[in-house]
């Protein structure tokens, strides 16, 4: 289990580098926009950029983990049960790390944006769990049907890319709009979101167990 934890901790860190790079890109786009926000507003908005990147990275990485790393670890002689635990550990670590960073930034920067952010942490946790479950489900389905990967990766990537482009052109103002829409969506559908996340996590758990315990480690 020690080796397994070592691998998945490093895996989390390597993916955190991707997450930070995407966040930095979003931040730069926001600053280069037509209406540059004030520094304190920008700093308080950074956690949202981190969360957007976090959801996207979690989704994509969870999908690709099932295609590459999970069969690879089976091929390296790890038990499937340990791999499932390790994968779960990675997901929780990534979510906890992202939310902790957000909480820290909001805690350090006073103001209404930060207070609102801290108040919304539970629903942001649910959102990240949802992204994580969706990515993992897409990954397990890909094991059986390769075309799922095409759809499951291209559509979210397209949406995320479009969002970056949209915000990149308008900078702070458009990011504000995106965040307002997202906030309305999330806060207006708390219980359906919680319920959907719970159902998807259960489906994810079952699918993962079924696929990982029966698959061949082809690399």
């Amino acid at each position, binding site marked *: 289990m020690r*080796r397994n934890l*070592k*691998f998945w901790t490093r895996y989390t860190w390597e993916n955190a580098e991707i997450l930070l790079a995407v966040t930095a890109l979003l931040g730069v786009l926001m600053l280069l926009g037509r209406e540059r926000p004030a520094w304190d507003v920008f700093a308080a908005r950074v956690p949202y950029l981190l969360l957007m990147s976090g959801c996207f990275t979690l989704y994509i990485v969870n999908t*690709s983990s099932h*295609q*590459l790393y999970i069969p*690879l*670890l*089976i*091929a*390296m*002689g*790890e*038990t*499937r*049960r*340990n791999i499932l635990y390790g994968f779960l550990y990675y997901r929780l670590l990534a979510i906890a790390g992202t939310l902790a960073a957000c909480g820290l930034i909001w805690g350090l920067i006073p103001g209404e944006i930060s207070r609102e952010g801290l108040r919304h942490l539970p629903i942001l946790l649910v959102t990240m769990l949802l992204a994580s479950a969706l990515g993992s489900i897409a990954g397990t389905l890909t094991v059986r049907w*390769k075309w799922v990967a095409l759809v499951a990766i291209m559509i979210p990537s397209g949406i995320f890319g479009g969002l970056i482009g949209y915000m990149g052109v308008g900078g702070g103002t458009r990011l504000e709009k995106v965040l307002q829409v997202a906030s309305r969506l999330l806060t207006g559908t708390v219980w359906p979101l919680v319920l959907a996340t719970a159902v998807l996590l259960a489906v994810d758990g079952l699918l993962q167990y079924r696929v990982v*315990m*029966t698959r*061949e*480690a*082809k*690399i």
Partner: protein
Amino acid sequence: MSLKCEHIVKTYGGKDVLQNVSVEFQPGKIYGLIGRNGAGKTTLLSILTAQNPATAGTVTLDGEKVWENRRALEKLCFSREISGSAESGISAMKVKEYLRIAATYYEHWDKALEKKLVDLFQLDVKKKIGKQSKGMLSMVTIILALCSKAPYTLLDEPVAGLDVVAREQFYKLLLDEYTATGRTFVISTHIIEEAAPLLEEIVILHEGRVLVEGNTQAFLETMAYVSGKDTEVDAATAGLEVHHAETLGRSKGVTVFLRPGQRVDESYDVTVQPVSLQQAFVALCGEGEKHEA
């Protein structure tokens, strides 16, 4: 104390790829697993190491079940062929990263040997797997197998794509490692003639069943190649199990299987020669040649 599978069945889409396969691999020996394409060799190796679940049957190592047993899996290494194709997710991974993950998971990974082999094979570890040639990918699988230091190491077509020099290097490395450590190696290969001198024990798999299992030399002694004039050959081999026959005009050559107590009647004008492992394999697994003379 052995790696053992009993009554293994593996079914893919209604087709039995392995049919009631039972084999035992004793410690401290080099085994050859040979069979034609599609005989089920890779499937058997992957089931033996829990990389593929069997439809039925059990695999044990020193009496313990291998499936989901970390203690047993730590003693096993199956260095399987890496496809490296664009479809495979691993194609984007660098060799360096692949070996780093292997070093994390194999408890007794030999870092010094890894460096030595990377230098010997002149492998560019910074290059992605998808950019490596077939021969280079074989070298990666050889490095994994040897550096894992697993007491039971299984290799699937380790010399595929290697040139003759690299193949000789591999056989020497394998023999050195075997002599130094006494590890058990199971090697699946199509290049039978070259590997034959290394293979102390042999398992021949044919159409999902074990056709032969045992000591290579003892097995070869049960076969003979008889040649001469067709009528003389037929008379000399009457009552014997003929597995492969070649005729050229009135000359004939047959490979026969000798059951205990049987022998070729050398009073006829025939030449009796020992067979090589490759000849024996072709005789046994060739198409439609078997008949009782």
